[in-house]
């Protein structure tokens, strides 16, 4: 019973997603927080590819490629924003940014 079945892939996808979510909540470094959201996206991508292979259609793979596009767009945006913020405060700690409160 060493064969990989759909559930194994889904478990990996869900694990990546949850690890990303936990990382997003507990880490305060802006870059690490962004990497955590990337991890969540990749968890979803694993799900999509697994389902696509399971059903034998291309929907999942096409979806995955589009997800990668979104992830790339978000990466470029995130790095730009992080550089912008770093120039202001010389730190990547998210807690340094708390002027807006209420």
């Amino acid at each position, binding site marked *: 019973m060493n064969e990989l079945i759909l559930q194994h892939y889904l478990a990996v996808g869900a694990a990546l997603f949850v690890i990303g979510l936990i990382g*997003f909540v507990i880490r305060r470094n802006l870059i690490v927080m962004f990497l955590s959201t990337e991890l969540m*996206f990749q968890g979803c991508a694993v799900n999509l590819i697994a389902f696509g292979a*399971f*059903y034998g259609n291309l929907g999942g793979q096409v979806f995955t490629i589009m*997800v990668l596009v979104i992830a790339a767009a978000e990466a470029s945006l995130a790095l730009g924003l992080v550089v912008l913020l770093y120039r202001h405060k010389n730190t990547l700690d998210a807690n340094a940014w708390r002027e807006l409160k209420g």
Partner: protein
Amino acid sequence: MTDLLSLILPELILGGAALLLLFMGIGKSVATRKSAAAIALLALIAAFVAAARHASALHGGATLADRYDAIRLYEFGQYFKLLVCAVGILLVLLAWPSSSDAQGNPSLRFGTEASEFLGLMLLSLTGILLTASANDMVLLFLAIELVSLPTYIMVAISRPTAVAQEAAIKYFFIGAMAAAVMLFGFSYLYGTTGTTSLYAFAQMIKENGAIGALNSWQMLAVMAVLLGLTYKIAAFPMHFYAGDVYQGAATPVTAFLAFVPKTAGFVAIIKILFAITAGTWIAPTQIVNLLWIIAALTMTIGNVLGLLQFNIKRLLAYSSIAHSGYMLVGLTALLYAHYAPSLHSSQVANVQNDALRGVLFYLAAYGIANVAAFGVLSLLPAAGAQSPGSSAETLDDVAGTGRSHPILGLTMAVACFSLIGLPLTVGFFGKLFLIVPAWKAQLGGLVIITVINAAISAGYYLRIVGTMFLRPAATVIPSASATSQPPRRAPLAIAVSITLAVLAVLALGIIFPTTQALSHLASRSTALEGSTANALLSTAATPDH
């Protein structure tokens, strides 16, 4: 089977204009940059006309779909396209760039970045139009992200202050997380059926007899998608960013944020609910209860936190959370009508139709009043002037301005009355069209919560109006008074935008035929599938009551 390109003509116009504007931003000549706003305006008008032509072609319940079924047009989507283009015109006028030394609205000091800024604005609006057309989860996800991604940049470049950048980074990170949660939901929705087409998904639900009884994976998927979308509409579990982001962004951008992502979120939620209920609006009770709880909490949190604010933009942010809550009441009524214990089964479809009409109408009412409120705010100067060229932020800033600027004061009063839902404004009909179906669907508890919340919201809206008219102007420090002399002549574009918005609020509230016209349009647009094309969805007998 119509040609794909002709189906997405409005999107092509807006997207093409957006790319053109982004290229023009590179141009060195001032003239090209100055024409940017006019091009954006023309593109929106052209997109409006194109969408209106589609709408008239679809009149009577037809559906237009392309060969791959990725785009399906029906009246529901067209309503949102027309609404978004119309409010988009007002929003572009509100953000009309002016050189920083000119009188007027220097809160958007994007001088050289004007055409990039407007390009991003158009890209975001293109995203909504695509959301309204999309029939495929892939396209729907891409469209929703296209709405959000440009707004992150818009917030960051809207003001040269650290506050705006802090707002942008918060908005971006929570947005990325919410997008991932939503995508997780989409991956399971795809996984339970093997199709990414929403229409095919609905058919499959119908054929499997799974209406109102999704399996646990689908439940998980729907919850994840809804959770992700509550970020877009700023509703309960993901609402907390709204205060910070709306306060940090420049006022015209805040007006944009309060309407555009919210509309996209509601379009997407309605489409997802349509797919999982196979067009019958019969959802599992867990989802109905979830919506009930989200609606009640969203309204209450938004209004109670709104009462505590002294910054007007923050206050309007919390009120925008509350408005999402009101619209969620409409969606709850839509799904609950089937379960209402003593509602006659012949009445269910009527109530569902009314409930959805209420949501559509409310979005229009909210969008217009929102433009007027933020427009007035962007014209009033900040008393302290802590950062260069900022517009009014706090209640102290606007104290007494109602008496020195009666027209602006009255405009703000009309906008606030409409947002409260007082009669003679469009907001009254908006609330009425939401509450009546909810009452008919026997959601008595939720109706009471809504009415109490509307009363609470009157508290802080009237405080804005009261501060403007009754409180004397705060004594300003002499050094700052030079920059904050109130009598600034309003720039023409902003004045036009506010005037149009206020006239619309009043016309739709007082002249009954116009109200009726809009509500008829909304009522017609509640069909998510053309009646002629949905043979498969409508012929199968409705399941047992």
